[in-house]
């Protein structure tokens, strides 16, 4: 049981989506990544992506960037778990 639990966490995968200006700047709309051991919430994930440098640092450091987990708006301390769909995007401008 404990062994299975460790196994699952080690292989935890999440999907990350990018929209609009962010999608264009990063050059990708989605990626599947292995959840790093030190990433448990939105703030951690954002820091992890910023650490890639270049446009990742430029774009994801912007304070206006919004995040969602499993299609619901999320805040910096919202928890991320195995299998989650996480999205980053600029403030919305519909209607």
């Amino acid at each position, binding site marked *: 049981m404990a062994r299975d639990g460790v196994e699952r966490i080690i292989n935890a995968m999440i999907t990350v989506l990018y929209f609009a200006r962010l999608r264009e700047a990063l050059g990708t709309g989605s990626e599947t990544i292995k959840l790093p051991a030190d990433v448990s919430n939105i703030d951690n994930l954002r820091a992890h992506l910023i650490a890639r440098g270049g446009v990742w640092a430029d774009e994801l450091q912007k304070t206006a960037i919004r995040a969602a987990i499993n299609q619901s708006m999320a805040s910096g301390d919202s928890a991320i778990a195995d299998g989650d769909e996480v999205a980053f995007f600029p403030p919305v*401008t*519909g209607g």
Partner: protein
Amino acid sequence: MTVRIQTADFDVSAEIAGLRRGNAKIGAVASFVGVVRDVNDGDPVAEMTLEHYPGMTEHSIEEIIAQARGRWQVIDALVVHRIGTLRPADQIVLVVVTSGHRGDAFAACEFIMDYLKTRAPFWKKESTAKGERWVDARASDDVAAERWRLKG
């Protein structure tokens, strides 16, 4: 409750008729249509493209409508939002609310529209003579959504 995201245009009369069908308790129908203007922030706009987050868009609008139902006497509500490429004078979004009385219909319709502008994941990209540009969120939209917190 009906929420549709589509590239096709919509017909306001047909949508109202569909929402009203079979309910003779309805006394008031408030509607809003958002339209592409030919100028934004001082520049002529040739066309715009609307991008959305499939799935989350529908969920967030359903949540907005559920909130409106919790605050006003709403019989039914409909939101149709277009995506893809639109030109000046094209219809972008339709919100229709039916109610027994007009005060509830107006308030719920405006509430849904204000929250949709700040919460539903849509993004507009405009084509102008200066090239393409993503439309920035307006502080006035946040103010419009925020003022509903003070009421009710």
